[in-house]
């Protein structure tokens, strides 16, 4: 258990800069997710924390100790790799035993024939530890098998078991669920979150899937182009994004972006209707609206339903607006009678509208119009 601190981390591979002056503080026992599109530097940041990659600049501190120059093996971190990186020639039990053998047994005790004689009682302890971790992950019936004889999900658990079996200061996970099928991924999300609660150890989790970040983490850091754009609890990231890119990346289906304007008096208008007042910019802006902030209405901007996505518990309607041919996605109750091709009117919840200036920076409302604007 430990708090982790990364300060001023920069890294470039040749000419390409991957990370630019990144700072990140992770509290003891926290589940922090680094999320972003591929190539944003999230994996590199995790590998710098692990020590597998050296930063060009910056410091890595674990529990206040500067470990920038400490080799990975001495940082006492455990890592789960995307490819699982299990040793294919060893059984699951031997795979899980490996970190214990290498850390807890002396060189003599690891000798092939002599070792087990020298460290009989120690080996018993280690085996008990392996069994314990295996039971936690419900893989105790697979201990004798080799990775090649396991399914993807079982391999993933074995890799998790190898990390779990000892008592590291933090767990690092590099897209551990991305090789699983959709149903198993959803299931493992809940299990990982539960595991984190039980172990109360620091988790640093890298993913490109914003759903994983939203569902599991205490805090999530949205990374893009080698920078952390915003870090905070999932709620805050979703409802209060500080940047257009963050708003676009988080949320599924993605946020609706419509062109609006701020006039000289600071009035924000969307489709020529005022929705509030804002300062800081005059001219064209982007108005972001989550699918749940747009409603069907009798009046308001009209459009045609071009697609209907039924998820069972809710329906997403894709509406092509008559004005400007913008496509808007909105969420409705499952039993809605609207059919494909119908013409509908829309209203928005101005309180949940987000304004972004042309550089993508978020602008705050100074005051808002009525709750709902026709």
């Amino acid at each position: 258990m430990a708090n982790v601190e990364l300060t001023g981390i920069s890294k470039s591979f040749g000419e390409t800069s991957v990370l630019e002056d990144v700072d990140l503080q992770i509290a003891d026992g926290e589940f922090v997710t680094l999320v972003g599109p591929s190539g944003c530097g999230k994996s590199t940041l995790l590998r710098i924390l692990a020590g597998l990659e050296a930063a060009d600049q910056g410091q890595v501190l674990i529990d206040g100790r500067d470990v920038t120059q400490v080799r990975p093996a001495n940082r006492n971190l455990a890592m789960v790799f995307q490819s699982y990186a299990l040793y294919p020639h060893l059984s699951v039990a031997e795979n899980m035993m490996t970190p214990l053998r290498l850390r807890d047994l002396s060189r003599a005790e690891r000798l092939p024939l002599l070792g087990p004689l020298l460290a009989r009682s120690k080996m018993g302890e280690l085996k008990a530890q392996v069994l314990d971790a295996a039971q936690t992950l419900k893989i105790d019936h697979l201990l004798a098998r080799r990775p090649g004889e396991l399914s993807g999900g079982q391999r993933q658990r074995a890799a998790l078991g190898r990390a779990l079996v000892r008592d590291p200061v933090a767990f690092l996970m590099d897209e551990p669920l991305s090789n699983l099928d959709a149903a198993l991924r959803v299931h493992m999300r809940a299990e990982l979150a539960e595991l984190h609660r039980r172990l109360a150890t620091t988790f640093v989790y890298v993913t490109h899937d914003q759903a994983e970040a939203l569902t599991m983490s205490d805090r999530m850091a949205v990374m893009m182009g080698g920078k952390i754009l915003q870090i905070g609890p999932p709620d805050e990231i979703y409802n209060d994004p500080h940047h257009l890119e963050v708003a676009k990346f988080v949320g599924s289906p993605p946020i609706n972006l419509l062109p609006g304007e701020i006039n000289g008096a600071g009035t924000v208008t969307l489709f020529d209707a005022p929705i509030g007042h804002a300062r800081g910019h005059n001219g064209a802006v982007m108005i972001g609206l989550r699918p749940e902030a747009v409603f069907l209405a009798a009046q308001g901007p009209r459009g045609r339903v071009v697609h209907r996505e039924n998820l069972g518990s809710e329906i997403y309607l894709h509406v092509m607006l008559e004005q400007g041919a913008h496509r808007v996605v909105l969420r409705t109750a499952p039993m809605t009678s609207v059919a494909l091709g119908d013409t509908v009117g829309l209203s928005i919840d101005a309180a949940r509208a987000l304004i972004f200036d042309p550089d993508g920076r978020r602008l705050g409302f100074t005051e808002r119009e009525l709750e709902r604007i026709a």
Partner: protein
Amino acid sequence: MPRSYAHLWFIGPALFLMVVILLLPIILAGTLSFTNYSLGNPGADWVGTGNYERIFTRSAYEKMFGATFRYVFVVVPLTVALGLGAALLIHSLTRFGDLYKTIYFLPVMAALIAMAIVWEFALHPTVGIVNATLERGCGTFLERWSWYAQGCARTFPLWLTDRDYAIWTVAFIGVWQGFGFNMVLYLAGLTSIPRELYHAAEMDGAKSGWDRFRLVTWPMLGPTTVFVVTISFIRSFQVFDTVEAFYPQGGGPSKSVYVMMFAIYEKAIQQNLMGIGAAITIVFLCFVMFLTIIQRWLVERRTHYV
């Protein structure tokens, strides 16, 4: 559905060629090995297992097996170990790797007959560079080694013509010539090891190079090693050209370098004793078959993890 014979046309050509150029000659050799046939004779007498009895009882053939196994059991471990060592060293280099690769691979590419002539000069007892170099060490601390002192007092060994040294000298040249080939195979094996496994090993606490080698490199090279060992065995059983180049008159000093391939050549071609030559060939074939079967078994049992 009418019965189709198309499959015969698919396998036919391959089957025909295999029978004509592989199976038939083996069967012929097998048959000949039970006769006393000579090339040019109108017929041959059936001698039963006579040829085989001779191979396993006469002292000349005892020497043949001795020389062959000495050569094989020196050359195989050394070429495999040196090949692996060189591959590991080159793989760890960031620069000049290609240069070393070329240097170590040169002896594999060079014509062995030409190389044999060079070695003959180098190992010449009086004008050769090897003994000349050794003589320079006389009078130094090296003389504390009794073998060296003896060499200084009298002469250094006649590497190629002393029966105590000849087979080891030929084996040394075999190692020199062969390990570059294994090195290339091991290099290919090394590049196919996923880097994440080394990272996992590092995270698991494998701090020394030896730990990483034991945990990742050596097991992951398992399939390569099985192949390398088998091919080395077969190649060293087949040694012929160095022996023929050094000792065209037959088998070296008191037949101490009388390896199997040379025996086949001498009996069947030089002395026109086809029957006995065929019998040695069949014995040779059995060795190679045996090794191949062991390799198949190992590959299936032990080294394929997926």
